[in-house]
């Protein structure tokens, strides 16, 4: 049963992140996702302080606010101060992350967060935190419900805005010409990324969220040019990473989140290999063809 809950939580989180991550990859904003996943830390700490608990709502608000702040800061550095984009991203997230760690140290006795958890989460403890109703009915681990809610949210978000996201992702100028509010979809996407980050935070930590955001959709992107297929493949790869990761971790007795990221990496390597070999083969075929034409 324990394995089931962990794999279920991992898959739900991984699928939510990969679906949003597909858009980040296509918009060439993978590192913005990375930045957001680090920068929500101060938001989480402040939410802890103000609500004095692990209440979901203040956390989500704090994280979403920080996520949007991150994008605004990056754009400010990039567009107003004319700093190059990679440096703008780097400065923003390290600064916010440092502030988060400082806040944790200052309020160490009020904030129940430690650095390990921040970096690689505690998905192994998911089955321990059960949601039991007042009448004593056991609904299963709390994290499962939260990550299921996240997935529903992400699916609704993509379904509701599919067309607009599609156009703004592939041709921003055309979208503008059609009168679509490009900035709205940009911030909506960033806000959703922040939400998924904070939901995933406790389970897999700041850095492995990035593995789910980036790696499965990148592997899917290598294999297809069709957005719908890419989303579907990302979800499949995300599930496989979570599933395989659990057993890999059990096998070598290590961090589950780390193992999930490792499996995602293996899937990416396989996809890369397939694409690479295909390319070689096509080149060979072409060479053979042109050679036979000459003779």
């Amino acid at each position, binding site marked *: 049963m324990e394995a089931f809950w962990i794999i279920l939580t991992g898959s739900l989180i991984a699928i939510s992140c990969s679906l949003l991550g597909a858009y980040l*990859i296509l918009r*060439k*904003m*993978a*590192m913005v*996702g*990375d930045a957001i996943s*680090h920068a929500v830390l101060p938001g989480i700490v402040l939410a802890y302080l103000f609500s004095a608990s692990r209440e979901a709502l203040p956390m989500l608000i704090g994280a979403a606010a920080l996520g949007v702040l991150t994008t605004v800061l990056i754009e400010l*550095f990039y567009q*107003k101060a*004319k*700093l*190059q984009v*990679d*440096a703008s*991203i*780097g*400065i923003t997230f*390290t*600064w916010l*992350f*440092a*502030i988060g*760690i*400082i806040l944790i*140290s*200052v309020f*160490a006795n009020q904030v129940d967060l430690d*650095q*390990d958890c921040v*970096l*690689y989460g505690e998905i192994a403890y998911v089955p321990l935190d059960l949601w039991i109703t007042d009448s004593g009915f056991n609904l299963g681990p709390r994290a499962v419900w939260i990550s299921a809610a996240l997935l529903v949210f992400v699916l609704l978000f993509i379904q509701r805005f599919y067309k607009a996201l599609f156009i703004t992702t592939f041709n921003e100028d055309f979208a503008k010409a059609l009168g679509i509010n490009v900035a709205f979809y940009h911030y909506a996407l960033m806000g959703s990324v922040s939400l998924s980050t904070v939901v995933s935070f406790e389970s897999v930590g*700041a*850095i*492995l969220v*990035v*593995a789910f*955001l*980036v*790696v499965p959709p*990148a592997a899917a*992107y*290598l294999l297809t040019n069709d957005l719908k297929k890419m989303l579907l493949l990302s979800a499949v790869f995300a599930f496989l990473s979570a599933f395989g990761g659990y057993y*890999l*971790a059990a096998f*070598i*007795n*290590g*961090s589950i*989140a*780390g*193992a*999930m*990221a*490792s499996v*995602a*990496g293996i899937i*990416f390597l396989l996809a*890369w290999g397939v694409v*690479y070999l295909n390319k070689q083969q096509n080149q060979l075929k072409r060479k053979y063809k042109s050679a036979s034409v000459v003779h």
Partner: protein
Amino acid sequence: MLKETLDFLSFTDPNVRYVVIGSVILGASSALVGSFAFLRKRALVGDAIAHSVLPGVAAAFMISGVKDPLILIVGALISGWLSIVMIDGIVRTTKLKSDAAIGIVLSVFFGVGILLLTHIQQSGNGAQSGLDSFLFGKAASLTPDDIWVFSSIGSFLVVIIFLFFKAFKIVSFNPDYAQTIGLPVKFIEFLLSTITVLAVAVGIQAVGVVLMAALLITPASGARFWTNKLGKMLFIATTFGVISAFVGSYVSYIAPNMPTGPWVVMILSLLTVASIWFAPKKGMLARLKTRRENQNKILTENILKLFYHLGEKKEDFEVGRSQEILLENRDFTEVELKKGLLKLKKKNLLRNKKNLWYITQSGLSEAKRIIRLHRLWEMYLNQRLKLEPDHVHNDAEAIEHIITADIEKQLEKELAYPEKDPHQSKIPYNDN
């Protein structure tokens, strides 16, 4: 507080000495190396390397079974190196862009690192404690051994940068040019990557995985706002690194539960944000000021031009004009016109009697200058670029505010002091 400050500054406590010396060496060498990564627009690759050294460190420990800093650094070097090769490989052979490649390599390497590290912790090998300083840094507990390793690697980095300064400079700014003049670009890029990996492998022990990127990127970003010269930029970036390392260790000495690494990054970020705002010329305030000055210049010059145009019609420049008349004849907002009129009055180019405004002698000659530039330029476009007379006005409207006295003279000579512009209006020279 004062006593602690004096204690800290006197360096009598050996612990303070180690922490300060160690952090300063790390801050300085990362800033130096990071400047080149910044200029090559590979700032985030530094972040990827910082995450990617982890599996190397863990593997080195698993293979050797001891926590020798040198062996661990060799492991870090190898996996840091591998990460660069992977990023370049992904970008070169797939349709993924560098941001995705960096994200993939960073998170997967880190995941593998965490997996190995937790495996080591579970295995109960007593020697492993302290390996997680690669994760979070341990600036507050540096030992003399660490200082030895840090300072030898730090001085090695400085020597390399000193020896290859020119080559690094050319490759950073213009790799194509470097190739043409026969520099071994591949080798130099290899060297640059190696020193980055080295700087990361030691720096990460002070501030940890996540914040390492800041030691590389942030000082260079701030320094870039102060100068366009590479030498100066390296100097300023290094100074930022040193100052923040010093202040960071001071803060964590005064308040012992404060982490050193995050405070170093905090100070660095503040220095850089201050640079972004206040640096002369390139800073935001300086740029805002220049822009406002330009806007004012254009506004006042346009008002003077309007006085000239109105006077030109009746060949009488002495007539007073009310604000209403001025607004009728050119598209100003009322606020902007009032602002411009007051500025011109201050410069004694206009004067007013009650509601009427008059142009002064010096105002008139300034107005003539601008009109002259406008019409000369129209003439130039018409005669030399063969543009039709009805196509030249808008261009002249913009450039009249920019042309310098030198260019004016050249234009006059080039066009042989024409009397009229393409629209047959008289070009006013100073002597008439």
